[in-house]
């Protein structure tokens, strides 16, 4: 009886990784718990242990192979005494290993094995380089730290661990422990310490391991950071960035899957930025660090590994408060931000196949909201669908819907529709989680509905 050794996942969002090294060779006998191989992603490394005893009969994936899909067989163990020749490799599992092939478990609406997002328009005269959102965020911080000695980063595991999600990778080495500060697990006070340091003239980047944990610190963020400039009659400044992954990751359930875009966007005195592409992640984070106000910078764990073209150069900023037309169109306006853009751009592709030219707006900043760009588009198309992963009530879509009703009522040919996460805490079960999030099909259906198609 042979047993497949499967490529393990290091995290709930990992889809593929590199098989770095085999520590056993074909024919070696192994015992449960023996380390067979090492794998790594851009985020972490891990040892693959044998779960059964026997002989390592076959190495399917040689060491050094990149982009090995999670759950695909990388080797086979047989029981002592069995013949190596009897080993048959599970064909379906091998198929799953092939790059670009969706696995059976993948949501039909999302190509989960593709980590390359749809291309975005980039000015042709600008030299670009392809990088992940993770790398773009890291570069933004490194460039700003080189530029301004008052910029420092603090948070849990940002230094020696290199970032829980590897966003601060290499910063400790370059800038030292004075400027890359590991904190204890103590969100409320390190947020407050960051704010105090900002009031004293420093420019802290406070990383929350995820924004779910920032709820421990929300009093400091709102009462101390957001309001002090106003309460002091403009005397006190608070140039601070609170950043970290926001929203649902994968299979981490209710307490770790929450979109705070609408929450923070409710608060005057805060700026709220939610980038989608790597270019925007980099340019907006640089703007956020230079901004004299408190900025909530909401990232997304699933997007961290996505690659995009990013303009070269260490002084390319994207202004806060300016939306981007990600795809021009004339028939319907689709408005989204952050990871919502993945559904929206795919829906726009699907709609084009049915003869509907959707204009896709990536808000990029939720506060201050660039409503003028949305208004101009809706005055042209007469139709609007909003897309977000957050909850429906008092969401970003609700706000846009209200503003369109106030300022573009006479231009609307159909009610504004909102596609949102479901109005429930995030469930754990895979099928329920999928049901709780928006999907491409419902964005397509909503766009067709407002076009009366």
């Amino acid at each position, binding site marked *: 009886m042979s047993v497949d050794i499967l490529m393990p996942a290091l995290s709930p969002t990992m889809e593929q990784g590199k098989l770095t090294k085999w520590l056993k060779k074909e024919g070696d006998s192994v015992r449960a718990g023996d380390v067979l191989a090492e794998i790594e992603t851009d985020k972490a490394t891990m040892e693959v242990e044998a779960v059964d005893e026997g002989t390592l009969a076959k190495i399917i994936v040689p060491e050094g192979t990149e982009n090995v899909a999670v759950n695909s067989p990388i080797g086979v163990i047989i029981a002592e005494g069995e013949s190596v020749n009897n080993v048959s490799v599970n064909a379906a599992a091998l198929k799953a290993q092939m790059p670009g092939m969706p696995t059976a478990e993948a949501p039909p609406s999302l190509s989960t094995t593709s980590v390359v997002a749809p291309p975005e328009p980039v000015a042709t005269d600008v030299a670009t380089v392809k990088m992940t959102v993770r790398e773009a965020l890291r570069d933004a911080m490194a460039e700003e730290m080189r530029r301004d000695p008052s910029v420092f980063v603090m948070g849990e595991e940002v230094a020696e661990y290199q970032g829980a999600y590897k966003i601060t990778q290499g910063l400790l080495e370059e800038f030292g422990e004075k400027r890359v500060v590991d904190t204890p697990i103590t969100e409320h*006070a390190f947020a*407050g310490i960051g704010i*105090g*340091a900002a*009031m*004293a003239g420093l420019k802290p980047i406070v990383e929350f391991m995820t924004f779910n944990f920032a709820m421990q610190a929300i009093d400091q963020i709102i009462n101390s950071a957001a309001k002090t*400039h106003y309460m002091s*009659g*403009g005397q006190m400044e608070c140039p601070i960035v609170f950043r970290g992954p926001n929203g649902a990751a994968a299979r981490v359930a209710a307490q770790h899957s929450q979109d705070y875009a609408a929450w923070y966007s409710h608060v005057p005195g805060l700026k709220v930025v939610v980038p989608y592409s790597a270019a925007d992640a980099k340019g907006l984070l640089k703007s956020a660090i230079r901004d004299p106000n408190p900025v909530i910078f909401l990232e997304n764990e699933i997007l961290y590994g996505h690659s995009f073209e990013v303009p070269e150069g260490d002084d390319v900023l994207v202004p806060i408060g300016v939306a981007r037309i990600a795809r021009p169109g004339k028939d319907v306006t689709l408005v989204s931000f952050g990871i919502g853009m993945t559904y929206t751009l795919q829906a726009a592709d699907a709609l084009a196949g049915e003869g509907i030219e959707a204009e896709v707006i990536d808000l990029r900043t939720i506060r201050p909201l660039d409503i003028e760009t949305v208004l101009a588009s809706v005055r042209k198309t007469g139709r609007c669908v909003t897309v977000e992963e957050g909850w429906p009530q008092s969401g970003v879509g609700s706000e846009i819907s209200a503003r369109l009703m106030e300022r573009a009522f006479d231009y609307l040919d159909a009610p504004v529709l909102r596609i949102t996460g479901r109005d429930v805490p995030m469930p754990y079960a895979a099928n329920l989680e999928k049901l709780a999030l928006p999907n491409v099909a419902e964005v397509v259906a909503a766009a067709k509905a407002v076009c009366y198609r």
Partner: protein
Amino acid sequence: MAATSGSQGNGSAAPEAASLTPISLPNAGLTQFTLDEELAAYREMLLIRRFEEKAGQMYGMGLIGGFCHLYIGQEAVIVGMTRAIKPGDQTITGYRDHAHMLACGIPPKAVMAELTGRAHGISKGKGGSMHMFSREHRFYGGHGIVGAQVPLGTGLAFANRYNGNGNISFTYFGDGAANQGQVYESFNMAELWKLPVVYVIENNRYAMGTSVKRASAMTDFSKRGLSFNIPGEQVDGMDVRAVAAAATQAAQWCRDGNGPIILEMLTYRYRGHSMSDPAKYRTKEEVQKMRTESDPIEQVRERLLNTHQASEASLKDIDAEVRALIGEAADFATHDSEPDPAELYTDVWK
């Protein structure tokens, strides 16, 4: 009496904390003030008291709105502490903040006009009694959420260490705030990173209407830093000389790079928690006893007259000068214009 017995200090560890090997500092004791020092302390404490009395009156006349927390009885704490302040040091406190501002040198007019919500208040009328700041005087608020100033003050100290400027942060909070979780999160990081912060716990015996004994499992607040290895000292907060001596020693501790230190000031507020206080949680006799036996201003006045042979007339001159200053501030705050309606939308962002 509790307020004065505190001056005996607590150089040794409590039995239950014996295994923690706390750092114990010698009690700072008393430093005798010179005549000039006594006169300065007398004038500053009197300025605070007259200011607060006037604020109380103006509240009663409807000129001051919202909450208004008076400092009467606690004057020796802030006046004694500021004896140790050096240029560049920061001060931050909670909502009972008028006195801290005056002691930092902020003009009474600007504070009083903020209480009345007028255009030339220190926060342009947008902050009110609990939310006042002065960059110029390095006063960082004025914070309305109990305990929130503790991480913020620790952050000021973080910036001092980052900049290597030799300055320290004086972070004030009450016995009520001392039970907030973020205080201990801050203690941990302050000691971990050896931040130059003096935590001044103003124990005025009541968190709103709840006495220390009814709210705190361990009522010796000077020991609240023990599990973080932060030294602490109990100080007679009614005697400005004891406060000044402790402040000087604590400030030196921080400036020498030893990290944070806690000073528990045993003090007492004569007035209610805020202007709307039912005064049902303590007896009139208790308040009266403190006023007659431990009043911080009377103590200095007696020393000035008896020890330093100052004349009644010279003290009356100070009284008159202070009264005039407060009268001028009240007059200004009463007649200054309200903020321009356009100010509603300014200062949300820089």
